[in-house]
């Protein structure tokens, strides 16, 4: 049976992770070929994932940096 749009939204990560049986994976991919809304939904999930990898990184507090730099300099080789 062909998956519905609702099924696609529930299984998008399992699809990307390669965690679905072959037949189910093929059925979802056929659905995605035919359904622009689901393609958009899956693309948006993937954009979230990609953007997460490039989030700005906050610097550690100065006090922690001072401690660890001191420990690092005085470490026992």
């Amino acid at each position, binding site marked *: 049976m062909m998956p519905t*749009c609702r099924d696609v939204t*529930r299984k998008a*990560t399992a699809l990307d992770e390669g965690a679905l049986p072959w037949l189910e994976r093929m059925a979802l991919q056929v659905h995605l070929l035919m359904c622009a809304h689901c393609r958009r939904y899956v693309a*948006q999930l993937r954009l979230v994932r990609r953007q997460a990898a490039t989030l700005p*990184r906050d610097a550690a*507090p100065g006090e922690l940096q001072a401690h660890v730099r001191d420990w690092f300099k005085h470490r026992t080789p």
Partner: protein
Amino acid sequence: MSGQSLDPGGRYNGVTADAVARHASAALPDDATLVDALQAGDVDMFSAVVDHYHRSLLRVATTWVRSKEAAEEAVQDTWLAVITGLPRFERRASFKTWLFRILANRARTRAVRDGRLVPFSALLPEGTDDDDGPALERFAANGQWAVPPSAWDADDPEAQGLRKEVGAVIARAVEALPPAQRAVFTLRDIEGLDAADACNILDVSETNQRVLLHRARTRLRAAVEAHRTTR
């Protein structure tokens, strides 16, 4: 051990430790170069590493400990353990995987000592169907979209402005995720660890890890959608 990747200009694969240290967001050099530098005693590179991972370590520590103070102490314990263990680090795992394994151990130890250990399994919610995708009301009875997702940027989905906006919403929304989802999302999508390493660090099954990751991505996509609808 010598810092064999350090060139005469004091650069590691073209990246100076100073340049990395100035910006917490700067990409770190590749693993071999990074570990060479740390084992050679490059304190500026170590500072850059501390900045780079600070927020993610705190996020993952709060999986087991509940207070901000306890999480900060677990992170501090982790850096001390990293400094102590660096000379013996054999690179069987990536530096990042090793770092988060130490963090998980330190956070659990601290939580046990404080009598406040929250087992990861206790953080696995039953969940409802609405956690796994858009709400039921957005679908017709036959399962097709009734209210489909709107385009975030119809003309150019890769537009710089959109990416910045999505990033800003994610940065806020990730802090509001339930702890287990936040931990999995941090390890998988922010830090880029693979599923096996994330499962190992969090002591969670691959299936549960995948469910948590999917729920986190679903919530964050919904947060971006809500932001774009209400602006």
